[in-house]
């Protein structure tokens, strides 16, 4: 090992705290990167396993071409079975259910499927065995999977109620608990006899799909081709391989979202970490100036000095990323456990650590660390040998900032230009792209300009905050801007975090506000009857609502899946009056859906060139055609959708099992006590378990709850940004304290109390972090608002800036600043006064 390398390694070892903090910043970033890959790989692998098992025996599957079509006619099942080479034919029947135990508690999963279906007596797959009991033999028997039975305490012989959208509530006895091949956490499966499954989940004439197993010697392709030949239009046959691949692809794309989020965290963490790493090395080099100069004086070349610093950062990079990799596996494990405890339907399985994950993590972590260490390394190489003889550090000048500031101004100008282009652009896509470009350039500009901005913000802020502390405040203020580069790099960790958080907060608040607006502007009902899970409002529940005393009118809205003039379009069918329920802003014609009239949205009218008076033919496969006339065109409306028509169209064109309502709007009779009406509605719908009665504010709240995932993400990002920022601030302050030992010693010698020394450091830290937060909040709120604006045509019509939240973040940043300064502050206050005297 070369002498320079020995020096580099000894250096790392000599400064353990510094080393630990830098390592942690590398570790945090790489852990999220590694964790995201491990987590999604693991899930994907587990899901792949499930599909490989659950659809193992499928050689061919027959299903409708479009998922809005009714499925495979039952009379075709025998025909498919008669195709040469078809050994086993298994109809697939399923639909969403909610089980209710005898004591009235709902058996609910938070995200995992809760599915009802057919207990197959002949299956392409091995028939599951029973833990207890036996297969359903009568229509009032059901079998439940072992996972759900154990989790929710259901046993063979228990009475349960099964809530199904269209046929309301069915009583059943659990005849057995079967061993499920689907091991996703929280999955609930309730299987019935064929007759009952047909009655509950189909229109009586179609099944969801038909699976076929091939006879020995017949390839799945041959079988599929043979079946395809006999299929009528609208149906298709897929090979088993295609089925499994499609399922895997579905899962992959669903998981890629998770992957992107986690990777986003990782990249933010790494980006923020870069500044900490850079800062650390810059300060190490500054502190080692004399030592490096000495090395130069005794004959080390520039290149050797540079390499020794680069080598140090390389060691930290490799060790940090290796630790990050381990941390990532832990993170993935923890995340899995956490999500699993919420019953989100995750499969279990061993952690998957692929070579790709290892390589990406190690390379990324090391590269980022090396990159961050590069500039300090070059600075180290420029130290003149004569610096070894100098007594004091040359105090860093601001002169080198001129070029940086000039570039920053140019980038800022580009950012403003891009942002303005985004603001004036009419097309949402272009506007978003320009605004995005504006954001990225604004971040770069902020980074370049922040040493200058630091002075502008910290000097006045320091005067205000520091005033009660007198000289201590003044020292804190001047210390905070003493090395503007360092202050900027330290604060930028918080800035980046807050840009993200504040931006998401604005968008989130705007979505919530806009949703509330939409509901306020469109829904006029006194009460809104809906469900809060996969099921729709059962049809009998709608009838029950109608008979509650005090109800003037009910308006039930149904999904209508039909083709209009040959092209499929999902719209809304209405039973009940429009007036007083849904507010429509009519552009042409009248809001009339009585008789053979329908009203269409402006968007639909424009795209299909329809106008008031046009005749439209609405049809569904096997259900005939209904002719309607366009009575009016309304301004786009989220609740109404593309078109509104009368309930009779829906009844004629919709399969029996889809005759459900997604919402029922209730108008009270004048003079009715709303509280009484509400309890009446609740009593009437109580038997349907899944139905909820809400007033408009509650409905808004429920709708807004959908945004809460976004808000949760926001707090996750905030937490991460704060953790890294704390590390950065601790690091910077700890190193500053070491750097200023002499000065602090002098202050102690001339009479500064320990308490005052600590306070100086706390205040300095507070100023730095508030500066970072202010910069981040300004950018975050600005760009959050601009992005919201680009989405104004997509329904985000209300801009809400969460000022309260912004203030909270600012306060949090101040607290974080002080917290991060605790340890460096205590260290500084312990500086003995003699430090002022002992030689540097």
């Amino acid at each position: 090992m070369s002498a320079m390398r020995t020096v580099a390694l000894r250096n790392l070892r000599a400064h353990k705290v510094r080393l630990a903090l830098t390592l942690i910043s590398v570790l945090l970033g790489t852990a999220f990167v590694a964790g995201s890959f491990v987590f999604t790989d693991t899930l994907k692998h587990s899901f792949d396993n499930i599909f490989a098992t659950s659809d193992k025996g499928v050689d061919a599957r027959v299903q409708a071409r479009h998922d809005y079509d009714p499925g495979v006619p039952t009379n075709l099942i025998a025909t498919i079975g008669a195709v040469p080479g078809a050994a086993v034919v298994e109809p697939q029947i399923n639909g969403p259910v909610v089980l209710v135990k005898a004591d009235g508690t709902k058996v609910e999963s938070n995200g995992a499927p809760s599915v009802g279906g057919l207990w197959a007596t002949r299956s392409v797959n091995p028939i599951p065995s029973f833990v207890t009991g036996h297969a359903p033999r009568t229509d009032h028997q059901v079998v439940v999977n072992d996972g759900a039975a154990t989790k929710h305490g259901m046993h063979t012989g228990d009475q349960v109620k099964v809530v199904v959208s269209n046929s309301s509530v069915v009583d059943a006895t659990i005849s057995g608990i079967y061993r499920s091949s689907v091991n996703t956490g929280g999955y609930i499966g309730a299987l019935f006899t064929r007759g009952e499954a047909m009655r509950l989940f189909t229109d009586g004439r179609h099944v969801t799909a038909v699976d076929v197993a091939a006879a020995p010697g017949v390839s799945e392709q041959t079988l599929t081709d043979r079946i395809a030949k006999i299929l009528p239009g609208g149906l298709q046959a897929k090979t088993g391989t295609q089925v499994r691949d499609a399922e895997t692809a579905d899962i992959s794309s669903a998981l890629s979202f998770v992957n992107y989020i986690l990777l986003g965290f990782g990249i933010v963490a790494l980006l923020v970490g870069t500044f900490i790493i850079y800062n650390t090395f810059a300060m190490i080099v500054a502190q080692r100036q004399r030592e490096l100069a000495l090395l130069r004086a005794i004959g080390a070349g520039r290149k050797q000095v540079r390499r020794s610093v680069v080598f140090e950062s390389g060691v930290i990079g490799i060790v940090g990323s290796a630790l990050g990799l381990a941390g990532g596996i832990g993170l993935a494990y923890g995340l899995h456990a956490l999500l699993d405890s919420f019953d989100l339907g995750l499969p279990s399985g061993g952690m998957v650590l692929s070579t790709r994950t290892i390589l990406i993590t190690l390379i990324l972590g090391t590269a980022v660390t090396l990159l961050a260490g590069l500039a300090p390394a070059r600075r180290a190489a420029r130290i003149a040998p004569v610096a070894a003889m100098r007594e004091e550090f040359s105090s860093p000048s601001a002169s080198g900032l001129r070029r940086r500031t000039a570039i920053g101004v140019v980038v800022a100008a580009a950012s403003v230009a891009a942002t303005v282009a985004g603001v004036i652009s009419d097309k949402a896509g272009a506007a978003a792209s320009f605004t995005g470009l504006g954001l990225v350039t604004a971040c770069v500009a902020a980074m370049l300009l922040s040493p200058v901005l630091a002075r502008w913000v910290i000097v006045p802020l320091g005067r205000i905050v520091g005033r009660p502390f007198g000289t201590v405040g003044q020292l804190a203020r001047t210390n905070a801007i003493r090395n503007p580069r360092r202050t900027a790099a330290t604060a930028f960790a918080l800035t980046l975090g807050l840009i993200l958080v504040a931006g998401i907060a604005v968008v989130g608040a705007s979505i919530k506000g806009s949703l509330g607006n939409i509901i306020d502007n469109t829904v006029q009902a006194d009460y809104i009857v809906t469900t809060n899970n996969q099921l729709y409002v059962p049809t009998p529940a709608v009838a029950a609502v109608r008979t509650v005393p005090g109800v003037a009118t009910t308006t039930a809205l149904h999904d209508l899946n039909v083709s209009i003039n040959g092209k499929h379009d999902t719209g809304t069918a209405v039973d009940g009056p429009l007036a007083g329920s849904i507010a429509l802003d009519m552009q042409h014609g009248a809001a009339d859906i009585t008789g053979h009239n329908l009203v269409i949205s402006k968007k639909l009218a424009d795209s299909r060139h329809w106008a008031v008076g046009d005749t439209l033919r609405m049809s569904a496969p096997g259900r005939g055609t209904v002719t309607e006339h366009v009575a009016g065109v309304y301004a786009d409306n989220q609740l109404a959708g593309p078109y509104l028509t009368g309930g009779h169209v829906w009844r004629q064109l919709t399969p029996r099992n889809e005759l459900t309502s997604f919402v029922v709007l209730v108008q009270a009779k004048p003079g009715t006590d709303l509280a009484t009406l509400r309890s009446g509605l609740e009593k009437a719908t109580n038997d349907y378990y899944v139905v909820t009665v809400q007033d408009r504010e509650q409905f808004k709240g429920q709708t807004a709850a959908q945004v809460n995932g976004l808000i949760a993400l926001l707090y996750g990002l905030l937490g991460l940004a704060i953790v890294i920022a704390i590390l950065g601030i601790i690091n910077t302050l700890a190193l500053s304290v070491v750097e200023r030992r002499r000065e602090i010693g002098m202050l102690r010698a001339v009479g500064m109390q320990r308490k005052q020394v600590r306070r100086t450091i706390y205040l300095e830290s507070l100023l730095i972090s508030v500066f970072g937060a202010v910069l981040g909040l300004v950018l975050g709120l600005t760009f959050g608002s601009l992005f919201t604006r680009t989405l104004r045509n997509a329904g985000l019509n209300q801009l809400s800036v969460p000022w309260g939240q912004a203030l909270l973040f600012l306060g949090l940043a101040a607290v974080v600043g002080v917290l991060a300064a605790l340890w460096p502050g205590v260290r500084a206050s312990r500086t003995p006064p003699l430090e002022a005297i002992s030689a540097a």
Partner: protein
Amino acid sequence: MTRSETITGFRSSTAAASAVDVVKSYGSGSTAVRALDHVSVDLNRGEFTAIMGPSGSGKSTLMHCLAGLDTVTSGSVAIGDVELRGLSDKKMTALRRDRIGFVFQSFNLVPTLTALENITLPIAIAGRRPDREWLATVIDTLGLRDRLGHRPSELSGGQQQRVAVGRALASRPEIIFGDEPTGNLDSRSSGEVMGILRQSVDQLGQTVVIVTHDPRAASWADRVLFLTDGRIVDELRSPTADSVLDRMKRLETRS
């Protein structure tokens, strides 16, 4: 009776600072090093004292102990009538702040503060307002009136050390300690700084104690104490550079 006692006599009420039978050891057991070996000394009010001695003689340690920057192993140290042993860090710090002034070899100014702010720093730390009249007197003595708004980096070494002397004088301490105050200065600046210290004793009634190894700097003092191996071995009144140098040579040949 030890030799040092015969030279310096016992603690008197006129002493600005005093040490009685002070021992300062570093380390323990067989590796223990005794930096001060039963030193007793009174530093008189209104007098300019220089402490001299070869490297390792304990002269700096003596000053550090007298100034409350370091603790003694045994014996007692007092500033005025305040005994330093057993003082809490808080009280000791306040004592340094209010009753002691320091001038260091390497100036030790706060680089972010102006000359004036550096001068008034100990007063500001104490949360008090400077006495305007006194401050004006000090600044005039320093000859820095036109430099008050400058930062240390904009001042020469001599000017920086004059600011440091100003900082020591500003709070009217009972005693000013200087640790090689001319160690980093050329001979002209040394002369200026020593002149100011002399002036502060003669005209402002200050008590000044410096540690130095420069006979010319020591010649500005009223009294020179010589230390060797942690003991006070000699004393000189009304010294000149030559007489100091002469004593130093004698000490070195004797030891």
